[in-house]
């Protein structure tokens, strides 16, 4: 009897009862409350991922820009060149190769060097007035207007070695070590 009644109850009837029990809707304010709560949430970590990726890119671009700027200084056409050493790199630049007077008085323009390796050399910086004086001196000597021989002869020669006479060293005396008392090879 019970089993027949049990069979008579259909799945549809069970589902209908459950559907009826579950036919409850949230209140109209529910969605608004969820939105408000979510709005108060900090931005999710995963959503900030794009910033996490972007930040290193920005840093990298900044570093590249700084390096580029430091290696490639902007050419300044109007700025004065207080130290005009570019054409007088090193002491040898003053004596060789031979300079023509035109080359010697060529105006120096500060700015970007022609090749990168030139900027890597250590530079001797000479003040502009001293450079002018040196150029004039060299030009004068070459043209025979200035004779430096008397001045050079007047300079005392300091390259000769000093002579040292009779260095006396006292003889070293070493006193012998006193022998140890007792028989040799006998344990004390």
């Amino acid at each position, binding site marked *: 009897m019970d089993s027949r*009644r*049990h069979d*008579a*109850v*259909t*799945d549809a*009837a*069970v*589902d*209908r*009862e*459950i*559907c009826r*029990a*579950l036919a*409850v*809707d*949230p*209140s109209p304010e*529910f*969605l608004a*409350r*969820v*939105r408000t*709560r*979510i709005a108060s*949430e900090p*931005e*999710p*970590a*995963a*959503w900030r*991922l*794009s*910033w996490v990726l*972007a930040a290193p*890119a*920005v840093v990298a*671009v*900044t570093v590249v*820009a700084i390096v580029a700027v430091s290696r490639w200084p902007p050419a300044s056409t109007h700025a004065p060149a207080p130290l005009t050493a570019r054409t007088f790199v090193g002491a040898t630049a003053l004596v060789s190769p031979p300079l023509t007077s035109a080359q010697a008085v060529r105006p120096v323009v500060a700015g970007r060097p022609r090749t990168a390796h030139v900027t890597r050399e250590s530079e001797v910086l000479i003040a502009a007035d001293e450079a002018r004086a040196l150029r004039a001196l060299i030009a004068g000597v070459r043209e025979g207007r200035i004779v430096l021989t008397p001045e050079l002869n007047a300079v005392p020669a300091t390259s000769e070695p000093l002579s040292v006479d009779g260095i006396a060293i006292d003889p070293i005396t070493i006193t012998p070590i006193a022998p140890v008392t007792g028989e040799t090879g006998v344990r004390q």
Partner: protein
Amino acid sequence: MHEYTDRLAGSVAAVNAELEREFEARLVESSTLAFRIAFSVLRHRQDAEEIAQEAFVKAYRRFAQLRDRDRFRAWLVRMTWRLAIDRQRNDRRRAARERHHEIAPVPTASDEVLARERADRLWRAIDALPDKLRVVIVLANIEEHDIAAVARLLGLPPGTIKSRLFLARQRLKEQLQWILDDTTR
């Protein structure tokens, strides 16, 4: 440089705005589902709304990984169910008091008393089911989910869902005999 960062910021803002729009769409289409799942466990409207809201907040935090519609709903269903069960277990005394308060028979019309008694019996029968059967029978009766849909939501094979649904119905039929007799008579 500024132009680059501005463009980057603009792109990120656009992506975030798109995610916000997608989440809003998921919220609208799944809010009732989440609420009913929570309600099927807690049988208290306010508690169910709190649990559903909590599930949506958790979903929002992980939404970048849950943009796929099916994955989102499945995740939401499981999360809501778990939260509701946790709430029920951790606060059983309070839940019982609320349920009693909500379903307490009010001596008015006899039809109303009968309806409340039916609902009470039904929920007690559903509560008596093991969790794995209960979630299947509840999901199958929310939004008319078929076996394939329930299988997708729970991440289980359709065959498993079918057998669990069968078992759940059998047990409910035994428990609800007198109610269903009335309905089918």
